[in-house]
């Protein structure tokens, strides 16, 4: 009786504390003076009642684990999977929206995009109990060495710490894309690291035993093989749903499938290709199509006159030769969608390639042959290599078979994943000849402009395109601080690229995840975890729940 009253009082007290802690968000005080830009940032969903973590979630990753991914100061890429586990960012993509408040509760940016201000939530802590302050945010920014570091350093004038919860970034000029890039998915710089711990253990120590402000605490790892994490009950948003998460790197698709069937895994990624049908047929497994981005073909060196792809008619013939409907059927059991743009519709300023904004490309081998003949190849031609994205080698042979049917012949260059990455990131130098087709996909969060910057403008890091018309539009885009105008210009560039066949889109790729019955909730509602915009992986992890 006495105990019961005490418990009720405690719960009431807790509820009051949570409610009180939340109240300041409703009346944000302005930090910056002058006119402010409109920023569309969604509120976080903070759970009023904190549950108890239960059970273990075993995840089968489709690549080996690199401990370097635990350290956001390093680089970026598949690492986001682990950032969402261990670390937390000021703002990051969540199911609520592409920009959602996380460690920050309030963000402002001046209308001329020269200042950005953040206010942190009250009472933030790292997993070791040490308070998280703006000093950590500043330290992380200054010590960041990863993706886009030069841009961040060049644009920054100074960082002003107003108090332990308020920080202002001053830029040398307008930095219109700042929030895009600073947001959790844009780079590693927004994920706040514990300065006291990092300086104590050093870079290697941190990779061996990372520590952050995220929902899961690092427990142990075997480099490259597996990593174990444990729920951190005091995570600000809610107590994680599962007690422990084990992530294992299993590159082999059949092994992941076997793991799902024997119950050694509860969630596995990349269940595509030949085994997708088996996943669909298995009554115990549930799966999510998880559309990431469209596959597309690139023509390195097409703009040199000696290249067969210099002629627009040849590139168009390539596009017409491909039977996308059948390709999608064979490769994805008709889950994928033939697509008319090379950027995913989930990217903010992208044109939708399903026929609404850009048409789905046609399949017409007769017309393709005719175009080839007009271009001077009545008997077709041989090109050097078809370079597929690793490990989608089957698809490469399917595409090559379609091309061979109209007389365009080649062989597949099977690279390993790092070699592919290296060659494609060298830009034009990566593929010395100009008789190569490279297959590409890039599920990159953020605006379409981020993809244009990399793949479509002169001197872009992985760009083979150098067209004066696009350059002019892009220069205008970069100079503008009018968001609506930037959107219009970005869309114009996308349309130009597709209509001139500089890039040939294939279909929107489903990157299928499968889960076992152990994962809650039962039924198809399991999909609701996975609707974070542009996310290839089903974060946030704190909402996952399993049986037992």
């Amino acid at each position, binding site marked *: 009786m006495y105990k019961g009253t005490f418990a009720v009082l405690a719960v009431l007290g807790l509820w009051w504390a949570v409610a009180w802690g939340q109240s300041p968000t409703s009346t944000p005080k302005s930090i910056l003076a002058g006119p402010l830009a409109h920023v569309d940032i969604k509120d976080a969903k903070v759970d009023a009642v904190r549950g108890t973590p239960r059970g273990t979630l075993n995840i089968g990753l489709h690549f080996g684990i690199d401990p370097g991914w635990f350290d956001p100061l390093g680089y970026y890429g598949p690492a986001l999977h682990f950032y969402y586990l261990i670390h937390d960012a000021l703002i990051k993509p969540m199911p609520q929206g592409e920009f959602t408040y996380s460690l920050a509760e309030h963000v402002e940016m001046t209308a001329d995009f020269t200042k950005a201000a953040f206010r942190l939530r009250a009472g933030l802590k790292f997993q070791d109990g040490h308070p998280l302050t703006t000093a950590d945010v500043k330290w992380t920014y200054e010590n960041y060495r990863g993706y886009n570091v030069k841009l961040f350093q060049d644009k920054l004038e100074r960082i002003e710490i107003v108090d332990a919860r308020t920080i202002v970034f001053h830029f040398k000029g307008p930095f219109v894309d700042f929030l895009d890039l600073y947001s959790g998915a844009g780079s590693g710089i927004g994920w706040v690291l514990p300065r006291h711990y990092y300086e104590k253990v050093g870079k290697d120590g941190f990779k061996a035993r990372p520590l952050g402000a995220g929902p899961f605490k690092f427990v142990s790892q075997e480099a490259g093989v597996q990593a174990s994490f444990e729920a951190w009950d005091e995570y600000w948003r809610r107590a994680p749903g599962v007690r422990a998460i084990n992530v294992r790197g299993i590159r082999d698709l059949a092994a992941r499938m076997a793991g799902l069937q024997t119950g050694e895994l509860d969630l596995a990624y990349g269940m595509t290709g030949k085994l997708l049908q088996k996943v669909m047929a298995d009554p115990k497994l549930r799966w999510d199509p998880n559309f990431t981005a469209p596959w597309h073909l690139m023509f390195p060196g097409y703009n040199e006159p000696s290249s067969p792809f210099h002629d627009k008619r040849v590139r168009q013939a390539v596009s017409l030769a491909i039977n996308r409907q059948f390709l999608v059927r064979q490769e994805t059991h008709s889950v994928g969608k033939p697509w008319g743009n090379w950027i995913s519709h989930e990217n903010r300023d992208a044109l939708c390639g399903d026929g609404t904004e850009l048409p789905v490309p046609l399949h017409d081998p007769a017309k393709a042959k005719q175009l080839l003949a007009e271009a001077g190849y009545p008997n077709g031609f041989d090109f050097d290599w078809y370079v597929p994205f690793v490990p989608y080698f089957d698809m490469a042979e399917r595409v090559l078979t379609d091309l*061979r049917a109209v007389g365009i012949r080649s062989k*597949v260059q099977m690279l390993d994943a790092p*070699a592919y990455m290296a060659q494609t990131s060298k830009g034009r130098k990566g593929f010395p000849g100009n008789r190569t087709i490279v297959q590409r996909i890039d599920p990159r969060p953020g605006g379409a402009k981020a993809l244009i910057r990399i793949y479509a403008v002169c001197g872009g890091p992985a760009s083979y395109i150098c067209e004066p018309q696009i350059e002019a539009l892009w220069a205008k885009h970069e100079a503008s601080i009018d968001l609506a105008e930037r959107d219009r210009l970005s869309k114009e560039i996308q349309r130009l690229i597709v209509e001139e066949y500089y890039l040939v889109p294939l279909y929107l790729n489903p990157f299928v995840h499968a889960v076992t019955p152990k994962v809650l909730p039962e039924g198809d509602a399991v999909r609701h975890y996975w609707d974070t915009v542009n996310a290839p992986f089903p974060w946030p992890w704190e909402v996952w729940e399993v049986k037992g």
Partner: protein
Amino acid sequence: MATIPVGATYRTSVSRVARRSYRLVAEIPAIPLAMLAILAFAAVSAPVLAPHSKLDPVKPTPGQCQAKFGMADCPYVDNVPPFWARGGTMDTPLGTDFLGRDVLSRLMHGARISLVVALTGTLFAGAIGTLLGVLAGYLGKWWDQVIMRVTDAWLTLPSLVFAILLSSVRGPGLWNVVVILALVFWSRYSRAVRGEVLALRERDFVRLAEINGIGKLRIIWRHLIPNVMNTVMVLFSLQVGVAVIIEASLSFLGVGVPPPEPSWGLMMAQERDSLMEGKWWLAVLPGICITMLVLSANMLGDWLRVRLDPQLRNR
């Protein structure tokens, strides 16, 4: 020790070689010879006898399209089962793969790749290794030291790892695989040949030739190389099997002969996932082909070893 021992060739005449090779051929055991003959025949006749193209899908009948996809017309029908299973046809006796290509035709063309790559690769390795081994054994001194130390180091390098490493230097391609095999396996020959030459060097016929003022090159060419040929042939026949396995493993790991060329190792790698769906034949048939080839090479090698090594003749 004054007489020339039996079995040593003082001069190797053409008629003698012919007689010896006739004897060899007449005595070859039947089983491996038959297996090898089948594979070699398949390889040679593939362009003529293969029922379908190795690269293009088999044109399906409307009935097949209707049954598989519910469409009147389709580019190809994939995963047609072999003739003994339900739904198989004699047009594609071993079924079709994931791209609707005839498995039998691809296996026949695959025999070409495996045989050409393994034989030429081993041949080059044998040539390099024998030459270096003879030089090391006969010239001695610094030649010996340098060649043998490099050979030792080469032998400590695990062959498959070395092959993978070389393939990422050379890039994919059929002839690159040949080069890789030659570069990896020469050290096996040089070690054995050197030992042989060390013994031959002391023999009377070499001594005699030296006394008669015959040049070193000529001695190597006329006296040493013919006499180490037995050892080289035994090694060669045993190494061919290893070369086939290495070629298949490279293809399996994705660094061998580039698709769409039908290499057996590649066919297995591509159909690995089909195993889980119960279409075991797609991966197992090329595996059986590899095993047959290596098995017959090994059996021939064993037989040659016994045949050419007088000490082992009665075992």
